[in-house]
């Protein structure tokens, strides 16, 4: 069994199948990308893993333990954090309170204080605005905040849903670098859902291409970057 393994995930929304028979597996420390068109089921797959959507069929294993019966809160304690699409900071809360919300399940106060320092050192922009409402931040800063918030939970697996959505190309590059750094420095495995397929394939080791709720294609990211089908459909020719 691999570090993370999802087998045959199937989710229905109002009796319409959203994803069917999705299987994903990877080893510790990898970045894995899920790419595909709008509505292909990328977000639903993440929501199924974090128990926000109910599985109709399938099972999920993480670090040798079956986790598909856990509630969302229990998964955070098990080391899985998700950054949802659209960033979703708590807009009327300070940067500080947003980050502390990330550490909600942790009991080690000293460790939380240490991680807060560490994350602020990584994101100096957030430190400058520590007491401001998160709603006043720019899109790129909000993305940094939600990644920092997720890291406050001390995850071993980080799920990122469309982190580049709505960001300027310069900022997308920063975010891509950030994901690589976190993966390298913190030893966090990453499942990355992206519309920006080129970015996702560049920074991941392995990728799955979702097509109308199923896995249409999978392989090493470097190979998919040069695959004619992927090029034509997802990399703009």
């Amino acid at each position, binding site marked *: 069994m691999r570090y993370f393994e999802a087998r045959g995930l199937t989710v229905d929304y109002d009796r319409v199948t959203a994803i069917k028979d999705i299987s994903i597996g990877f080893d510790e420390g990898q970045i894995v990308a899920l790419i595909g068109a709008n509505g292909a089921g990328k977000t639903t797959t993440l929501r199924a893993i974090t128990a926000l959507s109910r599985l109709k069929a399938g099972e999920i294993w993480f670090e040798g333990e079956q986790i598909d019966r856990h509630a969302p809160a229990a998964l955070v304690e098990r080391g899985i954090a998700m950054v949802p699409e659209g960033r979703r900071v*708590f807009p009327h809360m300070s940067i500080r309170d947003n980050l502390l919300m990330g550490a909600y*399940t942790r009991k080690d106060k000293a460790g939380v204080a240490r991680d807060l320092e560490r994350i602020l050192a990584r994101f100096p922009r957030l430190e400058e605005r520590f007491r401001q409402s998160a709603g006043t931040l720019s899109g790129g800063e909000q993305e940094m905040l939600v990644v920092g918030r997720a890291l406050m*939970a001390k995850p071993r697996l980080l799920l990122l849903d469309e982190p580049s959505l709505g960001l300027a190309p310069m900022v997308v590059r920063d975010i891509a670098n950030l994901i690589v750094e976190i993966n390298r420095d913190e030893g966090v495995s990453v499942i990355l859902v992206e519309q920006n397929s080129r970015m996702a394939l560049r920074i991941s080791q392995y990728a799955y291409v979702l097509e109308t709720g199923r896995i249409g294609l999978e392989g090493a990211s470097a190979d998919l970057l040069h695959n004619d089908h992927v090029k034509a459909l997802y990399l703009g020719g």
Partner: protein
Amino acid sequence: MEQILVNGTILAANYALIALGITLIFSIMNVLNFAHGQMFMLGGLIVYYVCVVLHLPYALALIAAVVIVGLIGMLFEDVFFQRVMRISNREENTMLLAVGTSLLLENAALSLFGEKQRAIPPIVSGVYRIGNAFLPASRALVLVLSLVLIAAVLVFVNYTKTGRAMRALAQDRTATLLMGVDAKRISTLGFGLGAALAGVAGGLLISISGVNAGIGTAISTKAFIMIMIGGAGVISGSLLGAVVLGFAEAIGYALIPGSVTYLLIFVALIVFLLFRPQGIMGKPAA
């Protein structure tokens, strides 16, 4: 003039407890608690029962009101609201449920305590004089207790982990779940806290103006006025709404007959809402 200021301050502080409670419930659960006035009424009648019928000290009566009404709130949330919110996503269902719980509480109070206006003897004796105004010591005590409770709630919501989770839940439910928050537990606690605040407000006000089993709807209406003035779901707005209503009432009662006062307040509210439907501190609807 000074007397109006004193009366307005006492009313505003008491109303702030009511408005804070209904705001907590509204922002966390997105439920407009139509039973808020009945919870207030129940708090008052519990204090009456413990003080007058059981002859126990006022402090104990107030604690009983907080605990019992708080538990009723938690029970309602856990047994009624959570279920209705799970099986239905139409907002009017929770509203109708809230109206139902208000009728339940009102009729329970009628059969337990009767319909008579109930009051309690003064908690402490003595009168302070501030300029030309008189402030009975028991009213001063009510004012101080209200202010302390308001401060305690604000500290809890702003500076504790559970309070932070309540604010987070009010802003983004999905993101809050992803932080590992047990949303059910926080909702139950929030509803309980909101109800307890209504109960303690009733338990305090009974020492000033008395309470009867039928007072609930009028109090709920006042609570709605306050959050409409201040902005629904905003804590600072609820406090502001309480100050505006408390002083409007104190000024009105001093200068014009009581029933005309509320007529004028309603007319002013309607005109105000035409220009600022989201309230003073509320965010405009997107």
